[in-house]
């Protein structure tokens, strides 16, 4: 408790000092560097206050909230079907994956379950959004370290996935396709064949990135042994997703949890890495994209027939109760605690987003690293601002 208050105190002093020094002469000793809120490496408006000694970080603190959009409050004034439109925008790169846990929580309260075909398609779209999200990470990784080519390759190949998502749902970025009790539509004709081809292309993309970036010696020297998170520290700070698996913790909600989704019907490997450094985090994500393409392929092969929508009342009223559902989203564990009072909309929704917990480790992790490593560590932790600030 004392440590916490001390940290708060330091954070306050540092932010005051940072503001005060903005227009004051430069200090040579113990410079305070404001990384962000407007900085190319922060993917948005994350602000990191870093006290530097030369190029070494003495103390760093992330300061979130510059893009707070009040989602938890906004959900209270919307009906259940309207909420999906909103929560799409939390992690904007893998937006379909945001809808799923909320819909599952609502279904849990209503005690209905989507038909098997809907579950299959949901899982496929979920994995596609993971590929779109993490695939962009793989390219972005290069740009954070000064290699400009991989990001264009990533954007090129993400386009195929976005086209697929658009083909199935009608929306490229914000599909809003999930409904309580199933999906809005069935898949269009020819979509399955198209998806198979795209998955092949994406495996090629993974190989390409592995050659271009992961095989590069400079990249390795920039990431190996940098920003090491031991497994117990990772657990204490509540990391999830690939960041936790890269520390050697074998933990994947897709496998460890039984949800009405199709992950239990496919066979996939949960990749872990013992090192816990930036390299491990990047490498685990690369393997995950590969694994996702295999999951999609398997699901396409075993696609059941049938309806995509269960019987639900026209006006959805969720019975009174509380439900917590979390899934393994592209960025980590994402969960919704939904409290319903039997109305048209939720009484209260608590959103647990992965990035918020993932960047909470930065004060611990950034201590003693060099300024260029701040960027690689932040890039390898992989956060999305919408997911931090909500």
């Amino acid at each position: 408790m004392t440590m916490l208050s001390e940290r708060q105190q330091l954070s306050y002093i540092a932010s005051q000092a940072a503001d005060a020094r903005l227009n004051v002469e430069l200090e040579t000793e113990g410079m305070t560097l404001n990384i962000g809120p407007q900085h190319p490496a922060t993917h948005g408006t994350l602000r990191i206050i870093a006290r530097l000694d030369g190029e070494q970080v003495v103390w760093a603190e992330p300061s979130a909230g510059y893009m707070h959009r009040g989602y938890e409050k906004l959900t209270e004034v919307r009906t259940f079907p309207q909420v999906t439109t909103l929560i799409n925008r939390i992690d904007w790169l893998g937006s379909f994956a945001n809808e799923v846990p909320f819909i599952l929580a609502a279904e849990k309260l209503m005690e209905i379950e989507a038909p098997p075909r809907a579950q299959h398609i949901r899982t496929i779209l979920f994995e596609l959004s993971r590929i779109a999200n993490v695939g962009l990470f793989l390219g972005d990784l290069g740009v954070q370290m000064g290699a400009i080519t991989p990001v264009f390759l990533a954007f090129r190949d993400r386009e195929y996935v976005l086209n697929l998502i658009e083909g199935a749902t009608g929306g490229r970025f914000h599909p809003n396709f999930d409904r309580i009790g199933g999906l809005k539509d069935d898949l269009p004709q020819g979509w399955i064949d198209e998806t198979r081809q795209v998955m092949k292309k994406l495996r090629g993309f993974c190989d390409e990135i592995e050659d271009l970036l992961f095989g590069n010696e400079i990249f390795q020297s920039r990431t190996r042994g940098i920003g090491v998170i031991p497994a117990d520290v990772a657990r204490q700070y509540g990391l999830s997703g690939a960041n936790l698996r890269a520390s050697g913790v074998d933990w994947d909600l897709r496998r460890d949890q039984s949800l009405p989704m199709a992950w239990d019907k496919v066979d996939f490997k949960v990749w872990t890495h013992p090192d816990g450094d930036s390299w491990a985090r990047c490498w685990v994500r690369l393997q995950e994209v590969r694994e996702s393409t295999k999951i999609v392929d398997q699901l396409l092969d075993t696609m059941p027939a049938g309806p995509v929508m269960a019987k639900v009342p026209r006006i959805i009223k969720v019975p009174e109760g509380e439900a917590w559902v979390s899934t393994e989203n592209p960025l980590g564990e994402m969960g919704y605690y939904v409290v319903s009072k039997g109305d048209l909309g939720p009484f209260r929704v608590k959103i647990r987003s992965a990035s918020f917990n993932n960047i909470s480790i930065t004060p611990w992790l950034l201590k003693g690293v060099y300024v260029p490593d701040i960027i690689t560590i932040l890039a390898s932790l992989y956060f999305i601002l919408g997911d931090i600030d909500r």
Partner: protein
Amino acid sequence: MIVQLAVEVPYWGQSLLRVLGGLVAVLLPAGTIVYLFLFKMMSFMQSRLGPMEAGPFGSMQLFAEVGKWLQKEDIVPENADARIYKIAPIIVLVSTFLLVVVIPFGPDAWFTNFSAGVFYALAIGSVSVIGILVAGWSSANKYSLLGGLRAAGQLIAYELPMVLAVVGVVIQAGSMNLQDIVMAQNTGEIFGWSGIGFPFVLTQFVGFLIFMIAVQAELTQAPFDMPIAESELVSGYMTEYSGFRFLMFFIGEFATAGVFALIASVLFLGGWGIPFSWFGWETIDQVDNWMNIVGPLIMFTKMMVLTGIIMWVRFSYPRFREDQLQRFAWKVLIPLSLANIAVTAIVKVVV
């Protein structure tokens, strides 16, 4: 070597011609490099088209960009040291112009025939450090300061291997005059065969590699671009600059790439010359006058090849960290170049 021109040109006319020639020799390669490599080659490597709208295949894009920059406001930050802040880009650009002065483009097509040309070129090449350091310091911006300091550390560290790599060439040619180095390569012979002359890249291959790596660092191109490092330091020492002062940095960056490529082609690839045995020339006085036209074209071709390689590396590599870069310079490049000098000297004495 007597300058024979059809008309008698007075001294002021010669000076004017030299200034115009210098402008052409700096700005033409810079523009070509920007269009061909930065706009087009990078785009094709990244599976996109690049600029296509301005002119055929976007070839007028650069003029549009220059026009845009010239229109922009020349912002000086409130706390900046205004006078120094304004001078800094000029220092960088002027050092490029000073650098081109000693490069020979043909038997008579040179600005000055300076007997210690190599020495001068390497000395002047490091003047731009002052401009960059001053730019970073005077901007009153922490990112600029970090960028400027990084640039200073990096450029000094890589100046050394560059100089040491050139020493091998100087030993082999027995002269510091760039014209003589060109001559030595084109009149030389390999085991009695003079079909391709004797470009020093054959014997000084290690020196050539070290020189090109050092040039890459000197130009602050990726993988050595941490003074600019757009993902860490926004734009390093250039962060606060806008309008035509930024344009000067921009031209300086690519013009210097061209000029260093020219120097590399003079030192290692035979410069403007073609093997003299082809036409039965023996000394520089026998070289025909048309070489003054063809020579610059040969130089331009070699320069484009070398800058193409520089840019290729730039587009595909991530960047080092500052300490890794210093370690690479001091622990790998400098010992290697010293060993290169030792071997060259021994071979020179023995053979």
